[in-house]
C-alpha cells in the first residue's frame, strides 16, 4: 500500500491517464468528485489531491510516498526528495519576460522589480548574474504586473508563449525547462522498496 499525491489542475488528467496505463485505476471519477482521498480498484494505492505547489511537501514529509509535480514547483519548494523519472508531459519553460519595447539591459545598475510566483527561482537567477532585484510575490496573472507598472520584469511559466504575446510581452531569457516529474520520498524508497521500484519501472515503460 502506497500513497500518491497528485496535483489538482492541469496535471490531473495526464497524471490519471499515466496511472491508468500503469494499471492503477479508480472506480470513482476523481475529476468530478469533491473528495480528496481515493482508493485504487485493486487496493494497492491511495491517491490524495493537493495544490500543485504542495505536492513536493507531501512527498518530502512522507505523507505521500510518491507524487507527480512539475519541475518548476520542485525547484521552488527545494524539497529534498528523489526524482527518478521525467514523465514527459507538462513541458514548459520558466522564463524572464518583459514588455515589448522595454530596453533595459542586465548591466543597468538600478534595482529591477520582478513579479513572480517563483520567488526562490527568480532570486537565485538574478543573484547569480549580480543583478539587484526587488521581488514582488504574486499568486496569479503575473503578466499583468508590468502592464500596470507594478514590475519591470516577470519570472513565469510559459507553455506556448501565447499569453505573453496577447499581453504585449516578450521572453528575455529562459531560466530552465520544466516538465512533470515523479517524486519519491527518501524513506519510503527504503521501507517500501519493492512496491515503489515496481511502480517506477512500470511508469518508465508506459510514460
Amino acid at each position, binding site marked *: 500500500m502506497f500513497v500518491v499525491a497528485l496535483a489538482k489542475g492541469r496535471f490531473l488528467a495526464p497524471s490519471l491517464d499515466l496511472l491508468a496505463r500503469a494499471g492503477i485505476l479508480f472506480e470513482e471519477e476523481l475529476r468530478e468528485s469533491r473528495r480528496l482521498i481515493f482508493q485504487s480498484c485493486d487496493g494497492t494505492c491511495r491517491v490524495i489531491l493537493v495544490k500543485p505547489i504542495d505536492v513536493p511537501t507531501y512527498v518530502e*514529509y512522507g505523507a505521500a510516498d510518491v507524487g507527480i509535480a512539475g519541475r518548476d514547483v520542485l525547484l521552488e519548494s527545494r524539497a529534498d526528495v528523489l*526524482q*527518478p523519472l521525467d514523465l514527459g508531459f507538462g513541458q514548459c519553460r520558466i522564463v524572464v519576460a518583459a514588455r515589448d519595447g522595454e530596453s533595459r539591459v542586465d548591466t543597468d545598475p538600478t534595482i529591477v522589480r520582478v513579479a513572480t510566483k517563483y520567488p526562490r527561482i527568480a532570486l537565485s537567477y538574478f543573484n547569480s548574474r549580480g543583478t539587484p532585484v526587488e521581488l514582488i510575490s504574486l499568486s496569479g496573472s503575473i503578466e499583468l504586473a508590468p502592464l500596470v507598472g507594478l514590475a519591470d520584469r516577470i519570472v513565469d511559466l510559459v507553455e506556448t508563449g501565447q499569453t505573453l504575446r496577447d499581453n504585449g510581452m516578450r521572453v528575455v531569457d529562459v531560466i530552465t525547462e520544466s516538465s512533470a516529474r515523479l517524486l519519491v520520498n527518501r524513506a519510503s524508497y*527504503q521501507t517500501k522498496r519493492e512496491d515503489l521500484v515496481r511502480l517506477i519501472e512500470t511508469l518508465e515503460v508506459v510514460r
Partner: protein
Amino acid sequence: MNSLTQIPPGTQILIGEAVRRRRAVERTLLSVFQGWSYEEIIPPMLDYLDVFVKGMGQELEDRIYRFVDREGKILALRPEFTSLVAKSAATRLAGASLPVRLSYSGEVLRFETPKGGQQREFAQTGIEHYGGDSARADVEVLLICMEGLSKLGIPNFQINLGSVGFFGGLVEAIEPSDGLIDRLRSLLNVKDQHGLDQLLGALDLDPSTRNALREVPHLAGSREVIARGRHLVNSRRSIEALDHLESIYSIIDELGLARHLTVDLGEIRGFDYYSGILFRAYVPGLGFEVASGGRYDGLPAQFGHDVPAVGFSYSLERLEQVLGSGPAPGSDARQESCDQTSFEDAVRLRRAGKRVRICS
C-alpha cells in the same frame, strides 16, 4: 514581537511526559552504547568555528550559529558532534591504546528549516570509533545502530548502506573542472535519471564510465547490487569499496540481520568528511531518516591525530515521533503520590523511598 513571551523559531521546551520520553530514549541508547564498551564523553557546547567548517564542509558553514569572543576569535555553537568528539579524542586521548570508543548525547544547533520533528536545536545521541580494523569497526557500529532501534521497540527498520569510494573511483578519470563532479553528485543524490542522461550526453567520456554513471541510480537493493556494481567498474578504488561492502554484508548476513540492510551505491550524500561507508536508518511511517553515520578517516588527522574513524548518531526528536506520544517506557508518572501536610511525614516517607507531595 515580544521577546520575553515568544520563543525564537526552531527552539522548543519539553515538559512532563515529553521529558520522561526523551530521558527514557536517551537512557536506552546510552545503555546499548555502554554494553558495547563505549565511554561517554561530554564535549563543550561551543568551539572555534574552524573546527566545524573543517568537518562539515563549506556547504553547511552557513548553517552554523556563530559569534565573536572578547579576543575577536570566531566561536560557534556546536552544529554536530563528530568534529568536536574527534578533536577531543585527538587532544585528550592521543596516547590511549586503540581502538578508542566514545559515546555522546546532547543538543546541537543548526540554522535550517525545521523538518520531520527536528528543530533548529535538536538532540543527537551517537558514537565514534577510532582506530582498529576498518571492516570490523564498520560492522560494529552498524550492529550497534540496529540494536539501539530494536531496544527502543522498533522492529521494522531499514539501513541504507552506501560508500563514497564507489562513486569516487568512478569519477577519478574525469577532469575535476567546472564543478562537474558536484553536479553529477547532486543529480545522483536525487536519482534524477533524466538530468543525468542530459549531463552525460553533453560530456566527452569513455563509454564504460558513462554507462557506469548512468546505472548508479539503479544500484540499490540487496546483496546482488554489489555484484552488479563489479561489472561496471575497473577503478581500484571502486572495487575496494565493493569488496568492503561485500565483507560487511556477509558478516551481517551470517548474524541473520541482512533483512534490515539495503545496499545503495548511489548513496553519497553527507558531510564532506565522509571517506568510506555511509548509512542512514529509516523506519516505516516517518519520511526522514532516524539515524545516520559513516566513516571519516581523514577527520582526526585534521586535529593532529591520524587514526581511522567511523560513527553515527540518532536523531532523538525523530525517534520520539516514531515512538508516538504514549507514556514513556519505564515511566513512573502514574505511581501514586501521597499528599503530605507535615514535613515530618514527608521526610519519613522519602527515607522509605516513597513519592510525596507537600500540600499547602
